[in-house]
């Protein structure tokens, strides 16, 4: 004959410590064990998410560099060099200068003499050889006009192009359509990057959802029992969210390290080229990008798990 169920109350000792221990063990310990046990079904999710995050990191850094490049180009495009005739009279040059300064569309005007123009040309790749090839200085003096709005550069060019002080052969640095071409290239690159990341994101989220579905299936008895003994919903679902977050975190760490490593290698190996073609991309920016990749990985992993739980776990 069996005995009876004891109805006594047991003392609640060290309540916070007990709750914390149970919480950590159940949420994180359980999730880690399950993640390791189901590594076979998690591996594809891990791979696709790592690839996604790596691409996101690299595309993000490229986008950042292109944005900075655009800023530089925009600044340069709104700076109009008005080349002066070698025989221009100082009074004509002064008159043109005053005329430009009085124009509300102009932010500032700087006079650059021939020596300064030569000095500046020698800093531009390819031009030092040209400068050295002739005995005389081939670079004209100029008025460098900083236009407030890039859209007004054409009007300022038209204003000064036929001035008596201006070189009639090569009057200004204005290149109609140059800025629009840069914008078009940047827009095309952004669209292509967004499309690629969206596709990769879809694949990564889908594969992660399937891996969580497999984990739910593997632990269905445990889930059923937990639900029937009155485990709160968050306690039943929590380990799966953590499991997804672990996948995202591991993928994020790998992708973040590779992103940082590639950028760091690029910066140290070709610092000059990096400054010119990827302005603003420094070691600090690379570290921030790696951290961001990790955070995105965590969010993607746990988010995918939540979607999968909503679809596949019975309430």
């Amino acid at each position, binding site marked *: 004959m069996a*005995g009876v*169920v004891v*109805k006594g109350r*047991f003392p609640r000792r060290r309540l916070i410590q007990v709750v914390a221990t149970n919480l950590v063990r*159940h949420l994180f310990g359980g999730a880690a064990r399950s993640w390791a046990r189901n590594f076979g079904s998690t591996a594809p999710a891990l791979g696709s998410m790592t690839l996604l995050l790596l691409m996101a990191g690299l595309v993000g850094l490229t986008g950042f560099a292109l944005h900075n490049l655009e800023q530089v180009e925009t600044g340069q495009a709104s700076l109009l060099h008005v080349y002066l005739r070698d025989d221009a009279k100082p009074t004509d040059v002064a008159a043109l200068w005053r005329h430009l300064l009085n124009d509300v569309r102009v932010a500032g005007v700087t006079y650059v003499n021939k020596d300064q123009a030569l000095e500046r040309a020698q800093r531009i790749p390819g031009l030092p050889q040209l400068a050295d090839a002739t005995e005389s200085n081939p670079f004209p003096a100029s008025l460098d006009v900083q236009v407030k709005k890039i859209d007004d550069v054409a009007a300022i060019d038209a204003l000064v192009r036929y001035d008596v002080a201006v070189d009639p052969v090569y009057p200004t640095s204005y290149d109609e359509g140059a800025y629009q071409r840069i914008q078009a290239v940047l827009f095309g690159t952004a669209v292509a990057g967004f499309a690629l990341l969206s596709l990769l994101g879809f694949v990564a989220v889908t594969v992660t959802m399937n891996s969580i579905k497999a984990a739910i299936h593997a632990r269905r*008895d445990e889930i059923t029992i937990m639900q029937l*003994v009155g*485990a709160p919903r968050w306690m039943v679902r929590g380990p799966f969210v953590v499991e997804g977050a672990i996948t995202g975190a591991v993928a994020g760490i790998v992708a973040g390290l590779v992103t940082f490593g590639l950028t760091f290698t690029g910066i140290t190996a070709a610092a000059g080229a990096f400054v010119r073609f990827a302005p603003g991309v420094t070691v600090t920016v690379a570290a921030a990008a790696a951290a961001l990749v990790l955070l995105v990985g965590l969010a993607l992993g746990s988010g995918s798990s939540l979607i999968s739980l909503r679809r596949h776990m019975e*309430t």
Partner: protein
Amino acid sequence: MRPIVEFAGVTRVYGSRVALDDVHLELLPGELTFLVGPSGAGKTTLLKLINREIRPTSGQLWVAGMPAHQLKSSRVAELRRRVGVVFQDYKLLPRLTAAENVAFGLQAGDLKVSDEEARDRSVDALEAVGLGDRGDAFPHQLSGGQQQRVAVARAVVGQPQLLIADEPTGNLDQETAWEMMALFQDIAAWGTAVLVATHNVDIVTRLQRRVLTLVHGRLVRDQPAGRTGRMAWLASS
């Protein structure tokens, strides 16, 4: 005495099929009640309603003082902690020992239970079901009857007000089935309402406890304890 379970005109419909039709009944603390009827009569539906696995289509259902008919999802766990459940297939986790299975049921439902307390209460519950010396055994090392006892220990270790069992003797031989019934009587004697859905006519007839008979979703007979009645549903099954 306030009822632990109260059905008031409860109907449950699956699509166009009526699984439970306008059921009125009450279960009192300390009462061992059998739920009988042919297959498809609505026994499992009735148990699922009590454990709030499903909601009634209409009517009111109160379980341990909680309105199961309008209970929010966020409060379902609270209700289930007041109801112990035993299944025909035991539903033990194979990688855990008997004691760990019982403790799992306790700690999954209540984070405030320490390992030490869970161990103590698991041992007590296992002793109560006559398995005090098999706590370290894994389910595959136990007989069917012993596994069902572990499942009962897991169901009652949280001291629920109500224990429901769906065909708990379905996989057991007659002798073991009688042992299980003795266990349910003990649990009821300590004030827990026990509702057992079963096809075992012999046990129902000889124990002379309260018998609820469901046929085609309708509660056709509520036979009080101490009476020996004809199993009306046998004729229709």
